[in-house]
């Protein structure tokens, strides 16, 4: 799957989990850029992403996520 498509799908997951249709993320987006993205909702986002793409991140992978781009790359790796 192309990164562009992964990003679009992750954006949809953000919209659903954070209950905000206006959210627009890009590879550089971090938690400080999105209003409701905190440590709690981060867990929900990760779980939703894992379910959607049918993948599982390891706990060390999780700690390394610094922005959306990191998540997209990790997803892309898992889908190969």
């Amino acid at each position, binding site marked *: 799957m192309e990164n562009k498509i992964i990003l679009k799908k992750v954006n949809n997951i953000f919209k*659903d*989990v954070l*209950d905000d249709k206006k959210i627009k993320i890009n590879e550089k987006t971090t938690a400080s850029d999105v209003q409701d993205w905190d*440590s*709690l909702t981060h*867990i*929900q986002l990760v*779980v*939703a992403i894992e379910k959607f793409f049918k993948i*599982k*991140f*390891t*706990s060390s992978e*999780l*700690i390394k996520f610094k922005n959306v781009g990191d998540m997209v790359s990790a997803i892309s790796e898992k889908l190969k």
Partner: protein
Amino acid sequence: MTSPSFNILKKNLKKDFKKFKNIKVAILGDSATQFLTQAIRAIGWEKQLDLEIFEADFDQIDRQVLGANSDLYKFRPEIIIIFECYQKTTELFYNLNDKQRKSFAYNSKTKIKNSYKIINSRLGAKLVYFNFPQMNDGVFGNFASKIETSLPYQIKKLNSLLNKLSTTCGDLFILDLASLVQKLGTKIAIDQKFWSNSSLALSIDMHPIVAKNVVDIICAANGDVIKCVIVDLDNTLWGGIIGDDGLDGIQIGELGIGKSFSQFQLWLRELRRRGIILAVASKNNERVAKDAFKNHPDMILSLSDFAIFAANWNSKIDNIDNIQKTLNLSFSSMVFLDDNPLEREIIKKTFPLITVPDLPQDATEWLTYLQEENLFETASFSVEDKKRTRHLRQNAKRALRYESFADETLFLKNLKMVAKIGPFNTFDIPRVAQLSQRSNQFNLRTVRYSEEQIKRISQSKKHLTVAVQLKDKFGDLGLISAIILEKTSDTLFVDTWIMSCRVLKRGVEDLVMNHILSLAKGLGTKTIVGEYIPTEKNGLVKKHFPNLGFTKKKGLWQLPVSKCEKRDVYIRTN
């Protein structure tokens, strides 16, 4: 309601809670409890409850419970939830020596008992304590059953001790987390990744299920319980159609898929045994339908298990309406079971308050589904429950008799009623608590009491209590009315006056009033004061106090003792 996903549930938090009943709940945990807080409040919305939740800071259980002036006590919750996760418990256990391990279960139970006592005495609050998932830690394998100092052994023992503790502590409710985790499966219920990264003891998916069960307990304590199950017959209690297939052709017992229906009937009978009222609403010839119960050798339910048997060609809607009127229960306390999705839709639309489970297509899956729905949570269980169906059938006989009397007075005399009236004794306590939790119609102030609270009131010097047991020539109706009076300097305040609707229009109210009067005279009380707090369901007693001669003064009903006269009753007292 099968638990929706956490994500969908969370959307409830933005909805309107304004009209809902407010109940203060505190959550104390040694793991991250934020999702649990959100899930519980969200499910509360589904049950029309505004659960106002105080969530203690991380890992503050002891400090909050033991500290005399902690945030917990300042918040004054009605319900306190304590969740000690198995992960932390395991760590604790592994740091104990053998001697300590041997008494781990017992010591843990003692600690919980002490916390309960402190909470109960300081707040009178209910404690909901989560028990422990029973997992094998792979140290002894199955051999752990033989090793008293092993973790699996002690955890199982602790869960058993918690059960025992809950039988003596009326306001302690054990949330059976062990069963819930087992049902979902440990692999799905617990996500070690998030325990490691975020101290989350349960997976996100597990939260709606746990929250639902917590709220089920809160609802039951609040009087929101199921009292009656209405069942269809064909393809619901047996496979096939009795009218077409006949006694030989319906599937029950060993025939065809009969085993799942036998299982289902066995469980329904168990519900009846526990005090749930069973009623039949079926489109069938009455004689043919009854014949199936009388003559099929494999039929598990019998006619005496049903309080009402409506098999006829009327619409199911009319039958259900009649059942509701006859039993005098609210629709929200009823469950309707039917294999046919179209029938279920019609009943759902016509009676939005009736719970209509969406039974799976395969009858073999019904019990799993229904058990997970946890429809029959309760906060009380008394001897009355076991006799309920018998009492209702006796009542039906009374109703028939009433029809044949033109004169009401003659009817009452003919009933040959005898009452036992006096203060609450130990045996009355469970039934009184249950009446206070379940009565909605003949209930002047709708104050809900737990067994523990009734026990305290019965021993309090500030209160006088009255319990009424009634018998008539058809049978023993048991404890049917309970009154709690609060003494002040020169008045007697009616804190609670509840009565079972089964004994309306019999003169029990007058009997009670006579008794209150004699108590008041004995104390030298000048005035009896009552209060009517209107609810959706107690319109029946709007005129209760004026009918007894009370007059309204400053929002309360008052009756000077000097103006009271003894009322005529057709009830003898022992």
